[in-house]
C-alpha cells in the first residue's frame, strides 16, 4: 500500500448515480483539450491566411485558449456551473465524490475539491516548474561560464532568459500559497475545507493548462523579450510571444480565483475562538499576499490583452506612430510587477516567522509589529512601481517621490526583521533544517534589502540599472528569502502532508549546498554587475571572466543541492521514517489532526482558547 493509498483508507467509492463526473479526469481533459485546439487551429487556418503575421497570431491565440477551455470541459470543471444554471445543484453524494473520497491516487488526476489534494497537486506543479526553470538557469550559467564560448546560440539564450524568468516567477508566486496555503492553511484555522472547494480545484487546473501553453513558446520560436515582455519589442516578436501572452492571461485568472478563495476562507471560516490576534502568522502572510494579488494581476492581464490586440488586430496601444507608447505597458506591468515581488516574499517570510517560535520555544516577539510590518509592505508596494522606470525618461520630476516611497518600504521590512530577531533573542534554537533556513533568510534578505536600497536611489540606479547587480539583487530577495522560506515550509510541514519525515541527512546536505552555492553565485554576480556587466546579454568582456566562472560554479552547486532535495522528497514520500502527529511540538491546529488527515479535517470543530505561540519565556 502506498502512502497515498493509506491517505484515503479503504472506504467504498460513493456512487452518485453513475453521473458524468465519475467518468471525467485529466485524461479526458487532455483529449478534449487537444481536440478543441486542433479543431480551432484547423478551422481558423482554413478561413484566415496564417502567412500574414496578425492573422497567424489570432489563430495561435485562439488555439491556446481553446486548449485551456477544452481541457477544463474535459475534466468536468463546467459541470458545477451548468448544473447551477439549470437548477439541478450537485447532490451531496456528487459533492462527496468530487472531494475524492475513497478514490485513492486517482483523485490527484481528477477535478478533486479536497483542499489537501489540491495542495499536493500544487506541490508537484511547483516542483515541475522549478525543475524546468532551474534547468534553464543551468543552461544560461553554462553559457556564461566563459566569454565568447557559446554553449547556445544568442537567440536561444534570449529565449532562455525570458522563459526562465517567467517560469520562476510563476513558480515562486505559487510556491508557498499553492501547496501550504491549500493543504495546511485551512487546517491551521480550524476549517473543514476551503470556502469554495470547486473554485479551489478550478484554480489549480486552470494553472495546469497554462503550463503546456507556456512550454509551447519554445517550439514556436521562443520569446526574445525577457520575462518583462516590454512593448514594442513584444508586439514585434515572433509567434512564441503568443504562448507567453496566453499563459499569463490564464495564470492571472487562476490567481484571482485562488486569491478570492483563500481570502474568503480566512475571513469567514476560522474556528470558534480564533480571533484576529490568534491567527497564525503564516495565515496572515499568505492571506495578505493573495489579497494583494487580487488587484495587482488584472493590470498585467490587461497589458497582455493590449499586447495581443496590437499583435493580432493591429491596434496601437504601444505604437508611437498611431498615438500609443511603450510607457503605458511599463506602467501597467510594474503596477502589478512590484506588488508581485511581495506576493512572492510575504508567504515565504511568514513561514519562517511561523517556524521561529516553534524551534526556539518562545512566543513570537511582537505579533502586532509583524502585522504592522506586513500591512506596511502591502500598502507601500502599490506606490513604488515607477522606480522600475527611472531610466525610461518617463517623468523625471516624479523620480524623487518614488525614491522616497521605495526607501520607505525598508521600514516595515525592518519590523519583520525585528520580530524574527526578537524571537531569536536569548533563545536556544533547535537547529533542524527549518530553523537553519531562518538564519539563511536573515542573511540573504539583509544582502537583498541593502543592495535594493542602492537601486531605489536614482543616482546610483543610473549606474547600476540594467546590470548583473540588479539580477543578483532580486535573486537574493526572491530566491534567497522567499524560496528559502518555502523550502523551510516543505521541511516543516512535510510530515503532515505525507505522514513521513523528510530525509534528515539529505535535507542538511541540500540546505548547505544550496546556500553555499547561492552565495558563490550571486556575490560573484554583484561584483560583475558593479563593474558594469550588463544583464540579459549573451556575451561579455574578458574582465568579467573570473567572476562569471565563479558564479557558474555556484549555480552548479545549487543545482546539485536541489537534486538532493528532490531525491529526499521522493524517497521520503514512500520510505521515510513514519512521522509522529506533532514532530516539532508546535501549538498550531494542523498538528492536532492525525495523518491521514480526515476528509473534513476535524472530527469535531476545534475551539481555540489561546494564541498559537504560547511557549512561555525561555530560561535565562
Amino acid at each position: 500500500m502506498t502512502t497515498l493509498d493509506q491517505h484515503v483508507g479503504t472506504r467504498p467509492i460513493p456512487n452518485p448515480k453513475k453521473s458524468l463526473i465519475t467518468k471525467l479526469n485529466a485524461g479526458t481533459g487532455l483529449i478534449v483539450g487537444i481536440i478543441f485546439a486542433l479543431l480551432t487551429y484547423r478551422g481558423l487556418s482554413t478561413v484566415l491566411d496564417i502567412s500574414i503575421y496578425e492573422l497567424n497570431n489570432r489563430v495561435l491565440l485562439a488555439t491556446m485558449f481553446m486548449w485551456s477551455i477544452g481541457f477544463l470541459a474535459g475534466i468536468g470543471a463546467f459541470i458545477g456551473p451548468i448544473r447551477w444554471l439549470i437548477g439541478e445543484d450537485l447532490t451531496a453524494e456528487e459533492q462527496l465524490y468530487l472531494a475524492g473520497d475513497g478514490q485513492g491516487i486517482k483523485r490527484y488526476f481528477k477535478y478533486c475539491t479536497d483542499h489537501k489534494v489540491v495542495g499536493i497537486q500544487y506541490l508537484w506543479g511547483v516542483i515541475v516548474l522549478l525543475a524546468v526553470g532551474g534547468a534553464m538557469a543551468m543552461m544560461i550559467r553554462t553559457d556564461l561560464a566563459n566569454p565568447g564560448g557559446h554553449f547556445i546560440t544568442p537567440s536561444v539564450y534570449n529565449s532562455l532568459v525570458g522563459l526562465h524568468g517567467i517560469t520562476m516567477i510563476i513558480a515562486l508566486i505559487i510556491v508557498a500559497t499553492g501547496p501550504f496555503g491549500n493543504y495546511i492553511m485551512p487546517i491551521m484555522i480550524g476549517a473543514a475545507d476551503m470556502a469554495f472547494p470547486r473554485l479551489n480545484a478550478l484554480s489549480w487546473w486552470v494553472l495546469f493548462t497554462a503550463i503546456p501553453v507556456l512550454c509551447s513558446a519554445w517550439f514556436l520560436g521562443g520569446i526574445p523579450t525577457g520575462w518583462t515582455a516590454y512593448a514594442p519589442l513584444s508586439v514585434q516578436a515572433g509567434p512564441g510571444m503568443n504562448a507567453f501572452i496566453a499563459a499569463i492571461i490564464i495564470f492571472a485568472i487562476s490567481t484571482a480565483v485562488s486569491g478570492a478563495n483563500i481570502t474568503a476562507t480566512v475571513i469567514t471560516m476560522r474556528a470558534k475562538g480564533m480571533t484576529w490576534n490568534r491567527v497564525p502568522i503564516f495565515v496572515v502572510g499568505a492571506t495578505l499576499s493573495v489579497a494583494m494579488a487580487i488587484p495587482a494581476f488584472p493590470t498585467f492581464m490587461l497589458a497582455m490583452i493590449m499586447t495581443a490586440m496590437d499583435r493580432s488586430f493591429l491596434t496601437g496601444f504601444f505604437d508611437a506612430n498611431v498615438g500609443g507608447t511603450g510607457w503605458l505597458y511599463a506602467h501597467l506591468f510594474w503596477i502589478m510587477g512590484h506588488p508581485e515581488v511581495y506576493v512572492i516574499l510575504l508567504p515565504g517570510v511568514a513561514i519562517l516567522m511561523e517556524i521561529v517560535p516553534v524551534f526556539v520555544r518562545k512566543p513570537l516577539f511582537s505579533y502586532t509589529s509583524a502585522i504592522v510590518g506586513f500591512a506596511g509592505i502591502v500598502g507601500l508596494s502599490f506606490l513604488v512601481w515607477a522606480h522600475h522606470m527611472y531610466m525610461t525618461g518617463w517623468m523625471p520630476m516624479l523620480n524623487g517621490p518614488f525614491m522616497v516611497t521605495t526607501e520607505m518600504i525598508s521600514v516595515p521590512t525592518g519590523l519583520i526583521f525585528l520580530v524574527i530577531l526578537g524571537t531569536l533573542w536569548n533563545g536556544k534554537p533547535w537547529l533542524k533544517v527549518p530553523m537553519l533556513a531562518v538564519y539563511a533568510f536573515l542573511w540573504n534578505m539583509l544582502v537583498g534589502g541593502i543592495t535594493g536600497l542602492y537601486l531605489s536611489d536614482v543616482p546610483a540606479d543610473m549606474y547600476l540599472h540594467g546590470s548583473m547587480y540588479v539580477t543578483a539583487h532580486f535573486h537574493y530577495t526572491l530566491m534567497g528569502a522567499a524560496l528559502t522560506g518555502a523550502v523551510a515550509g516543505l521541511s516543516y510541514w512535510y510530515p503532515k502532508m505525507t505522514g513521513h519525515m523528510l530525509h534528515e541527512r539529505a535535507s542538511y546536505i541540500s540546505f548547505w549546498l544550496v546556500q553555499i552555492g547561492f552565495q558563490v553565485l550571486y556575490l560573484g554576480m554583484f561584483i560583475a554587475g558593479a563593474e558594469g556587466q550588463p544583464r540579459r546579454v549573451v556575451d561579455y568582456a574578458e574582465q568579467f571572466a573570473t567572476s562569471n566562472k565563479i558564479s557558474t560554479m555556484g549555480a552548479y552547486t545549487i543545482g546539485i543541492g536541489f537534486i538532493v532535495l528532490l531525491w529526499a522528497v521522493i524517497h521520503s514520500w514512500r520510505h521515510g521514517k513514519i512521522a509522529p502527529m506533532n514532530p516539532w511540538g508546535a501549538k498550531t491546529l494542523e498538528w492536532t489532526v492525525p495523518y491521514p488527515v480526515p476528509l473534513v479535517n476535524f472530527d469535531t470543530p476545534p475551539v481555540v482558547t489561546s494564541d498559537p505561540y504560547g511557549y512561555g519565556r525561555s530560561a535565562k
Partner: protein
Amino acid sequence: MSSDTKFQVHHDAPEAVGRRERLGVRLLIVADGAFVFGMIFSYFYLRNLDQNGGWIPKNGHTFSASSGWMAVLPLIVAALVHKLAQRDLSHQGSFSLITLVAYIYGGYYQLHQLANMPFIVKDTGTFEGAYAACWVVIAGANFFHYFVAGFIALGLVIRSRRATVDPVLESWRIRTAASWFTWVAVSGIALAITTSFI
C-alpha cells in the same frame, strides 16, 4: 494553540454559505475593478499624451459620447430591476426575466457596435489611433460583463421555476447576484463617462 472537541461536526447554515459566497463575489469584483481601473488609466494616459497627434488622427473617426451611454444603459436598467427582485421575492422569476432580456439586448447592442466600428482603415486593417484601440478594449470589457451577468440572470430565471432549490440559500444567491449586477452597472457608468471624453 489549545482546542477542545466538545462540539459536533456541523453543516454550515445557508446564511453562512450565502455570506461566504457574497464575499467571494465581492473579492472577484475587486479583481475586475482593477482591470476596469487599468482601462480608464490607459484611456486618459494615452488621451493626454496624444503621442504624435495620434490619439485621434486627422480625419479620424470616433463614436459619439452618447453611444457609450447607450451601450451601458441596459446594465443600469437590469441592476435597478434586480433591486426590485430582491424586494419582492415572490415575483423574482419575472424580474429576473426582465433582467435577462436587458442583458441580452445590451450584449447584442455592444456586439453590433463592435461589428460596425468606423475607425478601421480598410486598406491595412489597422485601427485609427489610440482612441480606437482604447474604445475596442472597453467595448470588449462591457461585452464580457454582459455575458457573465446574462449567464447569472439566466440561471436565476431557470432556478426560480424549480422547486428543488433551497429557498433560503437562493435568496442569498439573489443578493450575491445583486453585487455583480450593481458592479457591472457602476463599471459601465465609469467607462461611459471615460469614453465621453473624446
